[in-house]
């Protein structure tokens, strides 16, 4: 599997670390809504198909990335930086 890092170009999977499900939305840290926290920490839809996930190019430029990957075929549809960079329209 290759992931096309927006900084480095296509690189081997071995250079990347999975950083988790990118569809989760963290409740307000002050929230005491146990159900919302339970959902954030434990509940996963585990889709068979397209999935938004965080990866880090840990063995490369070390940027955090947002990857849209097909969990059935491992096809990568989209890779962007996880966090926008001011002024450039790009992200890192």
């Amino acid at each position, binding site marked *: 599997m290759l992931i096309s890092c927006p900084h480095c170009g296509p*690189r081997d999977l071995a250079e990347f670390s999975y950083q988790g499900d990118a569809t989760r939305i963290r409740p307000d840290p002050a929230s005491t809504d146990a159900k919302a926290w339970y959902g954030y920490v434990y509940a996963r839809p585990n889709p068979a198909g397209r999935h938004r996930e965080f990866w880090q190019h840990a063995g490369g*430029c070390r940027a955090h990335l947002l990857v849209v990957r097909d969990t059935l075929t491992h096809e990568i549809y989209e890779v962007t930086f996880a966090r926008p960079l001011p002024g450039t329209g790009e992200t890192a």
Partner: protein
Amino acid sequence: MVERATPLGTDFRPGSYGDIAGGVGVTLSAPPTGTIVEATAWPGRDKALATALGKAAGLTLQPAPGSGAFKEGKAAAFVIGPGRFLVSGKDEALSGRLTQAVDPQTGTATDLSHGRTALRIEGPAAEWVLAKLFALDFSQAAFPVSAGRATAHHDVFAQIQRTGESRFDLYVFRSLARAFSGVLRHAAEEAGYTIR
């Protein structure tokens, strides 16, 4: 003045090794690097950082991914990530010039002279030997002279700059340099290699 000891140990000794009957495939060496500095720009300040580092090191630098520059025997620098550069040079005083050149509004510069080790591989089999270790395209079309790449061999991070048609400089963590130089020597064995 404290003498800097080589982290490469007693195995990395000048001589000829491996299958050299058909000629010397590569030459390995540890070029003297008095300075190794990593610099990172604050968001949106990558051009200013490139200019400041370039001025201090006597190089023309761009923040473009994969780009780099070097002056033979003086200094070398390349992009290792978004807004991040690795700058090295023979002269120990370069480190001070670099850290002075990066003002707090532009970014940070960290002296890693004792934290990284430079290894040089040169010769007709250099691309071939490196291709055994890293999942990168080492052909000149994909990896031109002066360009740099940040990659890893298993868990050993390696930052690589091409400094000649058949020459690459590799920067690895000093604590892993001895083990990594062993891997490099092993990979070079069937090409035949010398250590200089």
